[in-house]
């Protein structure tokens, strides 16, 4: 399974992952991961508040990831 993880708004991972040209994390695993487990595995500097899975805002983190998925993570932010 290969998942692209995009971190925004000052979120950083404490681990050394492979990166895309744009700097996104390439998360690879033979094991099955839920979104919540993936977030735990990233060792982020801050807890993400908004989690987007393939363009959809999640309300639960127990969704199982599959190959090719994209996850975008944000801290609490706003504007207007």
């Amino acid at each position: 399974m290969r998942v692209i993880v995009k971190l925004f708004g000052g979120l950083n991972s404490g681990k050394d992952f492979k990166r895309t040209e744009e700097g996104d994390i390439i998360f690879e695993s033979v094991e099955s991961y839920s979104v919540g487990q993936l977030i735990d595995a990233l060792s982020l500097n801050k807890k993400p508040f908004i989690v987007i899975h393939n363009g959809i805002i999640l309300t639960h983190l127990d969704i199982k990831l599959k190959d090719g998925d994209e996850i975008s993570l944000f801290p609490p932010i706003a504007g207007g």
Partner: protein
Amino acid sequence: MKILRVNMSEDTPMVKVEEIGSYEGLGGRGLTSAIVSKEVDPLCHPLSADNKLVIAPGLLGGTAAAMSGRLSVGCKSPLTGTIKEANAGGQAGQVMARLGYAAIVLEGKPKGDDIYKICINKDGVKVIKDNSLKMLPNYELVERMKGEFGEKIACISIGPAGEMKLAGASVAVTDMELRPTRHAGRGGVGAVMGSKGIKVIVLDDTGTTPRQPKDPEAFKEANKKFVMGLQKHPVTGQGLPAYGTNVLTNIINEVGAYPTYNFKEGRFAGARKISGEVQAELEKQRGGNPTHGCHRGCVIRCSGIYHDKDGHYLTKQPEYETVWALGGNCGIDDIDKIAYMDFLCDNFGVDTIEMGVTIGVAMEAGLIKWGDADGAIELLNEIGKGSYLGRIIGNGAAYTGRAFGVDRVPVVKGQALPAYDPRAVQGIGVTYATSTMGADHTAGYSIALNVLKTGGFVDPLKPEGQVDLSRNLQIATAFIDSTGMCIFIAFALLDQPETNSALVEMLNSFYGWNMTDKDVVEYGKKVLKFERDFNLKAGFTKEHDRLPKFFYREPIPPHNTVFMVKDEELDQLFNW
């Protein structure tokens, strides 16, 4: 508090100061909308002597209350034909309130083409003819005023666009550095100021003191709780100060709601290059400032200062809506050129949202190519020149669409849609369609719950629950806009009941009221009723509370959704 009326129809402008009278208890948007609703013929031409321009600080303006510096500008809009209230940050709201004015009402119309400046200080009001100011852009105008009146002033002004009475013209308000960077942008309020022959209002509150509450101890305590609430909330205490409003670029792009190429796609490949994160980093590197307040008493500090590559001041930190309109919407991913366009808009005195959407429409017409930043800059410069093309562009997206035969024009009631696609965020579509102001995201900012998960969550892709959401937000916003508070306090208010209570307590202790949460709702409804009644008399019906047809027909990628809220549901918005 007094109302200052300046009638420009007489050979010598007539100045009258009167008690607030029957408008007592109203401020900001509540006051502008009440005066326009009561005193302006809804069927008048917006640029005629019958229209009035009302400028009003909020109920808490000029007090020690944090965040209370917003200034409302109201009239019948030349862009939409509806009632209009546009508000701005900057210093003038606080200064005007400390001078004791609840509103300045510009009335009538001068017979000739002379232009005037209005000078207000603690000793009184002077209206001075000054044709040397004609067609000055805002920055040069403010420099002239600084030279004449000193550094301790605040200015409310129009640029060349306002003098030309273009429907995209804004009213500029100076910030803490005395730069004309904060704008009551929407609806062409600058054109109405121009029609009155007023170029600039210079306010000097030297020798005044903050307005005093009826119960100083209770007020102080409530303000303290209010500030603590804002600082505690992660959005108002951390997110907004760190990156400003443009932090939204990445998240709106990621959820597929970032209107790109004149609302054809929901994602922009160049979004990261123009995001708030990149912008804040550039500001730090170049000696600008990513964390800055736009007025005294601001504790959120979401504004900033943007320097060019050589480290010289270029403009204030462009807001999310501006970066989207002049950037992604037009396929432009050069943040420096977008920042320069922000400067041009401020200098000529035009609304950045309206101009960005207008340039998108011009690109749709083939006038310039998608992504052509230099071409977009040239179009804006045409406004400054006052050329025929510039006057078309400066009149906004609907006008430009007609001039160049474009049928995909993203406007509601003639006003350009802001930076969230209503097919990917259905709740904001309800606000765009039904707002009393034309398409306006601030009127009921559903993005807070549809995307940002502040105050709860309502699925943005489904039509269910969106009308109730928009209605509640429109009512709450009408109240907040009347207090003079920055709308960004709402993020903390939605999540923290104690911060909401602190705001109400500030009003109660200041005025000696016993307002409850229920009264807050009734206040918001009352303001919306002023506005709705005016629009009905101006000829607007439920058929005008709709999005352009292409939002119902063209699915937008990546979600491939259309706007799904039914007309009969939209018609229920004002049934409370």
